[in-house]
């Protein structure tokens, strides 16, 4: 992790005069913390990806292929937990949010730098606990990332420790949220009024609120699972009057809003990239900013759509189905605004833009399949099948994942002062995009044909499509590897990257590359909007 310090130089990499690992893991500089998050998040992403590929390998043919049923169950559980809690939730907010947000506001750091560092430490500790739980106790947890009781209260595997790890990760997420809200309220540079805040930062604002208000519920819920296992409180145990459905309510009260913690920052990235590469102000700035808040608010009230088949009351089904459809509206607004931003623009198809465009497409497919899930009757058929698996990979990986890569190609050169090569990035992108669709679209078809999820083994009639999907996963492997390798090499040894080659008008493009520790020598005064390219003097 510390090799980069040797190669990247200038700006915050060296101007504090401090080097060595201590200067990183005890640093309160938001940029260093952001990068540390980035490294961790990427490492866990690779762990998750490896598990994903193993899952696909097992599913390549019916019958046992490479692992036992118990191992398979642990595989997808850990894949889910790692991807959700270690990769995608901290993914964009904690890494790129930390890197970019203060600078976009014209601030020198976040509001509570030490809390920020603490939150990184909590993240690492939580992650380590989760990983330790895989190898100790009764073996890796096998409950699925949803930890449904009563199964999770009965299984002999090491659920308690894993859940405790997730609990700590939740705190890390909460602290990041608190930090961002306070920063946005208190640390804006003079002239940076609410309608001049870049949309990425806007989206983080909405995200942060969800983090603050929803995460505590998962904390208490997971705590309950632990007490259930250790003390036997019996709160969810039907034989003693408990109600397992209540666990599902509480779990999804957090976990549905959490999917907006995942996607909103991704949408923010896209809203920042599209105008820059179209050389055109974003279409409908206010509506996009507002729809982020609308998604956050409405999204907090739709959790029941994960429970249509659970035995919830029919009235509940109706209410939640209705609200679910309401969430689609702000998403639709965003999609339409992005597309019209490109209208008659001057579009340059560089790597960040390609990722951004594929985001729109993949997110739309995922989102629309979400509507099928939101309609009560169709969900009955495809609930807990690979259709759902396809849906959430489309929105999470196709959405947030691609946004993550877009952000990496867009912002990282700014912080490293060097850039990747364009051609391999595009080849990698093409492979990822093709592999992605082969993999997940097939899954959706499988699901409609009725293949249930979390199945270690399946009937022969599903064999062909599963083979196709597995092959798709290999194409994607190739793509991701190329992209990451190219980024890695380019950022360390590539061509120098200076000035403002993409012509961004947000504040981060107005300071030296790499940014100095203090970001701004003196407080900037903001005189133009975030996408006012003329005002920023961009040609």
């Amino acid at each position: 992790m510390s090799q980069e310090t040797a190669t990247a130089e200038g700006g915050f990499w060296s101007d504090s005069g401090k080097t060595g690992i201590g200067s990183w893991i005890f640093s309160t500089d938001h940029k260093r913390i952001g990068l540390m998050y980035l490294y961790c998040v990427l490492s866990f992403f690779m762990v998750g990806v490896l598990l994903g590929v193993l899952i696909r390998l097992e599913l390549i043919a019916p019958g046992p292929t490479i692992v036992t049923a118990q191992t398979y169950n642990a595989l997808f559980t850990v894949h889910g937990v790692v991807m959700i809690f270690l990769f995608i939730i901290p993914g964009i907010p904690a890494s790129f949010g930390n890197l970019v947000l203060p600078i976009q506001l014209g601030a020198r750091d976040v509001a509570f730098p030490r809390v920020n560092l603490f939150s990184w430490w909590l993240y690492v500790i939580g992650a380590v606990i989760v990983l330790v739980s895989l190898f100790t106790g009764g073996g890796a947890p096998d409950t699925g990332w949803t930890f449904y009781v009563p199964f999770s209260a009965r299984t002999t595997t090491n659920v308690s420790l894993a859940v405790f790890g997730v609990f700590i990760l939740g705190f890390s997420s909460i602290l990041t949220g608190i930090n961002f809200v306070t920063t946005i309220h208190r640390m804006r540079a003079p002239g940076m009024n609410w309608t001049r805040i870049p949309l990425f930062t806007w989206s983080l604002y909405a995200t942060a609120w969800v983090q603050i208000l929803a995460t505590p519920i998962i904390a208490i819920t997971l705590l309950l699972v632990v007490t259930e296992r250790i003390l036997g409180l019996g709160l969810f145990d039907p034989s003693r009057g408990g109600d397992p459905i209540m666990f599902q309510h509480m779990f999804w009260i957090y976990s549905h809003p959490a999917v907006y913690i995942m996607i909103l920052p991704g949408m923010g990235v896209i809203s920042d990239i599209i105008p820059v590469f179209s050389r055109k102000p974003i279409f409908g700035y206010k509506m996009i900013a507002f729809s982020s808040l609308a998604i956050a608010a409405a999204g907090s009230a739709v959790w029941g759509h994960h429970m249509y088949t659970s035995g919830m009351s029919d009235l509940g089904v109706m209410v939640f189905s209705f609200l679910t459809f309401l969430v689609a509206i702000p998403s639709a607004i965003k999609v339409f605004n992005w597309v019209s931003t490109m209208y008659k623009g001057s579009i340059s198809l560089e790597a960040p833009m390609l990722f951004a465009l594929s985001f729109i497409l993949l997110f739309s497919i995922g989102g629309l399949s979400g509507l099928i899930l939101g309609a009560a009757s169709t969900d009955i058929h495809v609930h807990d099948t690979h259709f759902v698996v396809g849906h959430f990979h489309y929105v999470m990986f196709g959405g947030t994942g691609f946004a993550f890569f877009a952000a990496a190609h867009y912002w990282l050169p700014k912080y490293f002062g060097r850039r990747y090569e364009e051609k391999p990035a595009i080849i990698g992108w093409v492979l990822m995009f093709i592999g992605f669709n082969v993999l997940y679209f097939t899954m959706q078809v499988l699901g409609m044909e009725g293949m249930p999820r979390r199945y270690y083994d399946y009937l022969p009639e599903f064999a062909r499509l599963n083979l196709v999907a597995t092959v798709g996963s290999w194409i994607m492997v190739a793509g991701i590897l190329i992209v990451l390798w190219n980024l890695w090499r380019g950022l360390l040894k590539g061509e120098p990257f200076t000035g403002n080659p993409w012509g961004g008008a947000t504040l981060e493009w107005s300071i030296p590359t790499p940014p100095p520790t203090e970001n701004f020598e003196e407080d900037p005064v903001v005189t133009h909007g975030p996408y006012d390219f003329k005002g920023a003097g961009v040609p």
Partner: protein
Amino acid sequence: MSHLEKDTFGAKLGMWLFLFTEILLFGGVFILYSVYLTRYPREFGLGGKQLDLVYGATNTVVLLTSSLFAAMSVTAIKRGAKKVTLGLLGGTIGCALIFLFIKYLEWSAKFHHGIYPNSPKLIAGPPGESVFFGLYYLTTGLHGIHVIIGSVLMAWTAVMVQREVLHAGDNVTLENVTLYWHLVDLVWIFIFPLYYLIL
């Protein structure tokens, strides 16, 4: 709005945001409580009758008083009265200890009657009863943990006041800690009627 000077307002904003997370944490328990209350009104009634109103009411008074001391300590430090501040903080911590002691008495009485999580008596009893006492232990336990954390924080700020790190000019840490303390009180304001009174 320079970034170098201390941002009192920002610090308080952050604290409030944190308090919201606490409210929602307890909110989760209250969701469960309300649901199970509607499902098992009778069992909850019987369970609630077994709780000791005297312990509960005493603790309410103790906690309210501690809250008063905490609030007064903020006034004191702003007026620059260091001794008074320290005394009031001591009073708060004292009340917290009394609270915990009473809680201890109450819990051990329950244990004596064979009512504790997973106890044979609860397993054999009617379904709702186990849920009621499960919730009771969960809520008061969680609240107790907060009382302990709060007292530790109070003690820590007292040390800071003693060393004059916190003083009339810069006391936002003390304010924030008392905010936390009031939250603990707030939660109890709801726990008390819900568990001891209405059933």
